[in-house]
């Protein structure tokens, strides 16, 4: 599973769900904190569509943690300041890198739930789609 996908699932998941996964790992492994969670900034790079150039939109506060598990590093970066969650995410990342993470089924279950939730929210927005009744064509002949 790609890092992008795993991190998206975990970032969107409830902190308690992430903790349960991390606790399962910590029950049999002993991760060591390499870099305790701390806050920093990430600058958002945007592409604007007029000239297809880049600009900086603004910054977000992120927290970051690094752990070591069986000689493999685990890294997590998360918007906000939830230190417990980012540390748990780093433990899970280290377990993935060490090849000892066995709960991809749970990640896939969470992902399915998250997808349905987003699609339900989208359905609510799409209910406000305008249906125009055209009296004349706006396409030039």
């Amino acid at each position, binding site marked *: 599973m*790609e*890092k*992008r996908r795993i*991190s*998206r699932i975990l*970032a969107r998941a409830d902190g308690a769900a992430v903790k349960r996964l991390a606790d399962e790992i910590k029950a049999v492994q002993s991760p060591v904190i390499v870099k305790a969670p701390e*806050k*920093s*900034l*990430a*600058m*958002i*790079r*945007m*592409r*604007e*569509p*007029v*000239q*297809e*150039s*880049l*600009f*900086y*939109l*603004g*910054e*977000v*506060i*992120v927290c*970051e943690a*690094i752990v070591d598990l069986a000689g493999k*590093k685990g*890294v*997590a*970066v*998360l*918007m*906000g*300041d939830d230190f417990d969650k980012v540390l748990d995410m780093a433990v899970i990342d280290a377990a993935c*890198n060490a090849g000892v993470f066995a709960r991809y089924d749970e990640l896939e279950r969470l992902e399915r739930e998250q*997808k*349905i*939730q*987003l*699609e*339900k*929210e*989208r*359905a*609510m*927005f*799409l209910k*406000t*789609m*305008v249906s*125009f009744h*055209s009296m004349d064509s*706006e396409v030039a002949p």
Partner: protein
Amino acid sequence: MAYVAVSGGEEAIEASIALLNYYRSGTDKDLDLEVIEEKMSLLVDRVMSEAGLYSKRYAALALKQCEGSSDEAVFLLRAYRSTLKRSYDTRVVNTQDMRIARRISAAFKDIPGGQVLGATYDYTHRLMNFSLETEDAPALQKKMRDLVQSQTPVEAPDSPRVSDTLKDEGLIDRFPANDEKPFDVTQNLLEFPAPRSARLQTLSRADTGFISGLAYSVLRGFGQVHPTVGELRVGAVELEVPYLENPEESLYIGDVLLTEVEVFNEADDKNQLKLSCGYGAVFGRNENKAIAMAVLDHELSTTGDFPTQNDEFVLMHGDSLEMNGFISHLKLPHYVTFQSKLDAVRKTRRKTT
């Protein structure tokens, strides 16, 4: 009466700062940060945008701390931001991938993907709703959660940019992707003429009122255009940063809510076969600011004598922190400089009498 430079006043200043709490003490009810975040979200969005820092929770805290003053809240967030190091630039965000919550066009009624009104005050009657004086907040939350859960999940419709269609027809110029490193106004002093990246960053974090007023001046005649909103989008975009252990991979770090606008303008005198565009993008739901930004972006691309065509005028006077700081400093003691002014006036009066 004599005027002299003075020192002192520390005790009075400390007492004054302590007295600020007096104005927050008129009720025994606390203002929960979650309440500010969730029920004052447009104010939170405005503060985040003007601070150039996306953090709902900290913006809510700043607003609580300063009794809801948006410029003080911006000051607090900027000050806090300056204590943090910057660890990452995100992967390039392309709003083509936005999870759309609202999307309209004033240029075409039929756009691929459809016009989605989303949540908007545009069509509301501006009548006071006195029932909110005693609102049942838990019931409202349950009602809206039930509404979401009752939906049938749908995939995102394909929603290409309106401008892409016009680019395909050759009516708008299409440029190749330009990956030049952007200018960062938070780390470098602006020089003029400002690069496009500096212009967009400055406008995006500008004071909402300032750029709205300038854009209004353009529309009223102190400018060249009356643009058409080609597309306005509100929605969430995903942020990713490089993964430290393998920069080929990315980590998702969260979503930010944005408002994005493209405006189309009449052709200029030199090139009457094309439309030209202006672009605006701001944190949160702030449509008028995004439109104003797009109007000014286009206006600054033209030449002429209107104030809004002067990039130093537009870009140097709209920063909330800078403008309010400078105006605010007028309240601080100017005893010596004022005495000098007074002396000059008195001397002139003596000469004339």
